[in-house]
């Protein structure tokens, strides 16, 4: 994935699209847009940094998992096996980018408002499976598990782009195969105006930022 920071206006449509697509519960988010303020009021400007999972080439989260529940697929996506994850949260500790969340079994409306909103009970389709969610089954995965952005794998497998890509109002995000020299992302990632987050850690993120 390549994200053109010059085109990002900080609207957070990507974060919302991700929430809607993956039905992430409270406290779980696969995507954030980090804002940084420059200058002292009233002379301020802002800059934005959208952060999905960076799908590192050498993901620190994968190595620490005690049960091999999280692993890197051949296509490069780092996934979590919800049926195997024991919920120790070591991967959350190990991720240098804060890209993982723990699903603690929260709901937006259950027990908080008089009526339960339908979206609270809508199943998610992470990894192409239907994951039902109900306050009566608090032990059911993905509750209790580590969760993360998977580049909308269930969409990719049907030939669709990740939700954050299609929704971006500025067209600031590009998606494709970095190993395919003819692809747009490969050409952009080869630009001299490119950066990756915390390169010094040796994680080799697969998300590039165009400056």
């Amino acid at each position, binding site marked *: 994935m390549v994200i053109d920071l010059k085109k990002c206006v900080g609207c957070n449509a990507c*974060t919302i699209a991700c929430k809607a697509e993956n039905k992430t519960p*409270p*406290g*779980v*988010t696969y995507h*954030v*847009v*980090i*804002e*940084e303020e420059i200058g002292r009021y009233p002379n301020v400007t802002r800059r934005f*940094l959208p*952060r999905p999972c960076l799908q590192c080439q050498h993901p*620190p989260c994968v*190595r*620490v*998992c*005690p*049960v*091999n*529940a999280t692993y890197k697929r051949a296509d490069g996506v780092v996934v979590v096996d919800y049926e*195997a*994850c*024991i*919920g*120790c*949260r*070591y991967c*959350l*500790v*190990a*991720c*240098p*980018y*804060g890209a*993982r*969340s*723990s*699903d*603690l*079994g*929260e709901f937006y409306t259950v027990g908080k408002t008089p009526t339960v909103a339908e979206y609270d009970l809508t199943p998610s389709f992470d990894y192409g499976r239907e994951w039902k969610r109900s306050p009566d089954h*608090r*032990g059911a*995965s993905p*509750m*209790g*598990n*580590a969760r993360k952005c998977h580049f909308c794998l269930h969409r990719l497998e049907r030939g669709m782009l990740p939700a954050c890509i299609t929704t971006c109002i500025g067209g600031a995000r590009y998606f494709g195969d970095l190993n395919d020299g003819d692809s747009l992302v490969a050409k952009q990632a080869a630009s001299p105006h490119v950066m990756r*987050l915390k390169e010094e*850690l*040796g994680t080799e993120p697969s998300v590039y930022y165009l400056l």
Partner: protein
Amino acid sequence: MRKLVIFILVVGLVTLAVGSFGLFERLTTGLVKVGWGSPIPWALWVVFYIYFIGLSAGSFLVSSLIYVFGFKKFEAVGRLSIFTALVSLLTAMVFIVVDLGHMERAFFIFIRPSFTSPLAWIVWLYTAYFFLLLTEAWFLMRQDFARLSRTGGLSGRLYRLLALGTKEGGEEARNQDMKVVKVLGAIGVPLAIAFHGGTGTVFAVSVARAYWYSGLFPLMFLVSALASGGALLTALAAFILPNGYRLHRDLVIGLGQLLIIFLGIDMLMEIAEILVSLYGIAPAHFIPIHDQLFGPNWYIFWFLGVGCALILPLLILLTIGRKSAVWTGLAGLISAIGFVGVRWNIVLPGFAVEELPGIGRSFFEPHWTYGLYVPSAMEWRVSLFAIGLALTVFALGNLLLPLESARRHEI
């Protein structure tokens, strides 16, 4: 001292009763009611887990002084230290199991192992250590079980069961058993160093958390384990061994003087870490230390971590503790409790710095609390359950098991 043990039993049972409600909440509502969240994934239960695992490693290593390195002076506290190590280990396991999002899958660590995860390694080592402790405790006590099974009645039957068919032998049989204990203890020393150094390694390998990411960290774990376990044993020798501070005055004071060394090295390591980190300006190194010392939870560092764990016990041990076993025991108790603060400041400051600057303000939802953690009532209740269980088992063991090693010498 029987009265004190019964008091501990009562306190333990009350704590257990209060805490059971917390465990019920934990089992029925899951993790919804915890005060932590994704930005602070490890919190109070992990603090107590490393606290108790440290006590276990520490008391075991002190016991090895007796059974492996031949410090006969401390022998009276030998069995008690093995038993304490066992109870602490089990308590630590209770804390880490309730912390899991899917407790029912804990055994996956054995059936789908990952060899690159320090966490998997330490669980395997804990398991080996658990069986080693059980075996060592049994070999230490089996002659007494055989002797006590003659008493008849319900307790006699219990001891016969524990003896597992051991026939009462004479001095020679005991000496044979002590040889086995020596071998087990000798295997246990590297094992204890490995599992506790390994617990430090779980934290230390996290390149994402600069506060933990150093080779000093596993060593600090070992030193503070010796200090906290040594402190606890000093207190137990003074107040739990029958007539402890009167009858075993030399032992208690000797343990206290040993504790001075452990506390001294621990202090040295902490000072080294603090000075180096505070000197720099890199936030990932600077903020975790600065927040400990001057942040909203400053009192945990100064009162518990420095005052109770180190300074006060050292002052006592270096002055009145040299002559008084009661004061030495008290110093041990204060220090052992103070180490909870040290453990808190091992875990929580690791999350003091946002992974990416500004990420804490990028999202507002329950449990998304960067740098802000107050343990919830449910977390405290579950902790009370585990601690109550520990106190109860500890007291029962002291009432039922032949934990005084020196009995036969006294008669």
